[in-house]
């Protein structure tokens, strides 16, 4: 008697996750080929948020491009401003006064904490913790946004830094408020750790999931927490120091396995290191003017310059080419999130649909910067 083998014919089907989806952080489409629950292939499609910032910048003055940079990664506007101003100052050889440097560092590190709060909160939201962690973290972020409001009157797109310094000095009530924040924040980060760090379900969902190996991370030019989560100790603040970062003592947290859990831990530890830098910067804040004498229409000499910083999402750089006129000839943004997305397919293959969302959340992108 022969046994007949009955095989059920299955075929993989293509599914679109996004562009309108509560868990893709922005308008992002993933064309996933699924075999049952397992992801076989994933193709990212973006460009829904392309506004042509690089072309727009060619028609604006150097000073007028600063608001454009705000809208790149709107969750970390101060860092964008800083990177751009750095690039222009390199191009035109403009010095920045001491007080402005310290203020810039304070703003950049506060921005890093705010951005990481949102990144960690939405990562946990994707894990299914239904809003509780993100609401707690937004509560802390509100305090940072109040500080920014005090300084420049804005809560999201600050337009605070200028070529040659910052636009205005910090008001009197800023420093006591900042001191109060610095006293309370370590307690809050400890509370998040107490609730989440060893949570069994979080560990089960994110440990070992979406691994990015060290070699692949370097090959795809990854940067930021994605690169450091994979074990590469590369932080622009240490590798290629800009502004006055070489004066501050801080550690660079790295992960070991390159999975989602490590990236989450790297972000939390970076928040702690930012608090450390903030304390040192606050101590050393000198008196003085906050902006050097720069003409309203800056005309840098013909040439090119590349200025990059360690933004919360990675290595953000601005490549500027000048032809001696008041507008940049070429304005290119080295978008860390666009480049970090290169390995998305490799990281997602073989995992299930539920893991897809978690892996995507752990890379922490901002679509406005991907599309520009």
């Amino acid at each position, binding site marked *: 008697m022969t046994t007949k083998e009955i095989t059920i014919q299955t075929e993989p089907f293509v*599914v679109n996750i996004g562009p309108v989806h509560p868990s893709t952080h922005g308008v992002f489409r993933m064309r996933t080929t699924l075999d049952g629950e397992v992801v076989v292939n994933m193709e990212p499609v973006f460009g829904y948020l392309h506004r042509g910032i690089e072309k727009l910048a060619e028609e604006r003055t150097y000073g007028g491009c600063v608001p454009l940079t705000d809208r790149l990664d709107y969750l970390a506007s101060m860092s964008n401003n800083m990177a751009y101003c750095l690039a222009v100052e390199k191009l035109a050889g403009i010095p920045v006064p001491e007080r402005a440097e310290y203020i810039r560092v304070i703003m950049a590190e506060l921005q890093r904490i705010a951005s990481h709060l949102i990144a960690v909160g939405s990562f946990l939201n994707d894990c*299914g913790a*239904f809003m*509780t962690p993100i609401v707690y973290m937004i509560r802390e972020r509100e305090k940072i946004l109040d500080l920014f409001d005090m300084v420049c009157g804005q809560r999201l797109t600050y337009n605070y830094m200028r070529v040659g310094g910052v636009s205005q000095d910090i008001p009197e009530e800023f420093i006591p408020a900042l001191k109060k924040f610095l006293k309370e924040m370590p307690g809050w980060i400890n509370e998040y750790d107490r609730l989440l760090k060893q949570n069994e379900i979080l560990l*089960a969902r994110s440990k070992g999931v979406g691994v990015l190996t060290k070699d692949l991370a370097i090959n795809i030019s990854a940067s930021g927490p994605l690169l450091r989560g994979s074990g590469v100790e590369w932080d622009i603040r240490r590798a290629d120091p800009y502004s006055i970062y070489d004066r501050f003592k801080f550690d660079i947290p790295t992960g070991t396995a390159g999975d989602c859990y490590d990236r989450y831990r790297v972000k939390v530890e970076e928040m702690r290191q930012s608090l450390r830098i903030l304390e040192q910067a606050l101590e050393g804040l000198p008196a003085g003017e906050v902006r050097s004498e720069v003409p309203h229409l800056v005309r840098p000499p013909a040439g090119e310059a590349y200025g990059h910083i360690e933004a919360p999402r990675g290595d953000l750089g601005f490549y500027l080419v000048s032809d001696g006129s008041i507008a940049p000839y070429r304005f290119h943004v080295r978008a860390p999130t666009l480049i970090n997305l290169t390995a998305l397919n490799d990281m997602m293959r073989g995992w*299930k*649909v*539920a*893991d897809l*969302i978690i892996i995507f959340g752990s890379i922490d992108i901002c679509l406005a910067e991907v599309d520009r």
Partner: protein
Amino acid sequence: MAMQMLPPGWPGNFWAHWAIFAVIILVFVLLSVMAFIWFERRAMAIMQSRLGPNRVGPFGLFQPVADSLKVLIKEDIVPSRADKLVHWLAPVVAFVPAMMVFAVVPFRGGALLADLNVGVLYVVAISSVTTLGVFMAGWASNNKYSLLGAMRQIASVVSYEIPVVLSLVGVIMLAGSLSLQQIVQAQDIPFILVQPLGFLLFFIGALAEINRAPFDLMEADSEIVAGFNIEYSGMKFGLFFLAEYAEALVVAAIVTTLFLGGWRGPLLPDWLWFLVKVGAVFFVIVWIRTTVPRVRIDQLMALAWKFLFPLALINLLVTAVEILVWPDVSLWLLVPVNFAVMIVLVLLWSKLFKLGWGRVNV
């Protein structure tokens, strides 16, 4: 048997009793569901350091009323290629069993609709009918993703039935009867103290069966399959939504009756104790939802088969041995023994079993 249930002071005959109680149960279930919706939203909000609904009526008490009105006046859209009869019937099949369970739950000393002497069996059987409604919804919608969601649901419910029922057998053995009324009357000390492991297993299993966090994969909005109720709108969706809270109410009521001592308690009147205990259990359910992230489908199944099922069997064995070996001992002596057993077993199992090992190919 019909005449025995009638407490001495109740007016009328069997049919009057039935009519009064049916109305009471209907009103109780619907009102409690509305109260639970409000309570969940406020409690969850306060735990998340925000306010929750506070506009509609004092403390937002009329929020569920507003929600129900909204759901009632929405357009009822049926997909053109859906199976019309099954599509219409599914919410009914999902909601009605949740109400039917209350026929055997004692509200106060001796007051319930029918004191079936197979009460627990009736409860377990009827609450499984809800799953049928879910599958009907997934099938009739003529939508690949809702069918996938419904299949997941069925797989998880079937897996969790076994540890849930097994954990109830311990209680049944201690009380010596399947009738819910008798079980409440046998609880001189609440069975949660005597059967801690059983309570734990039942609670986790029941949470998984009613799709509450951390097991709410079916209604997870962070996945492509938004669940079996993708194609539902209007009052049919409202019925599914109510059914979810009604099932939570059922779980709370069963836990109260079987483990917490039902309506028994000093000082306060019986029915008030019942309501207080049900509310407390529901608060714990909401608390868990606010605190814990979600598991994945293969981890869910692994939890049922590798963690809950063996522990349920061992619990059954231990309880049976205790009853056999010490038939007349006071239950108070069993309490520390069972607690010790529970702690040892849970620690041992969690060393051997980690959620992340459940990488089953579904």
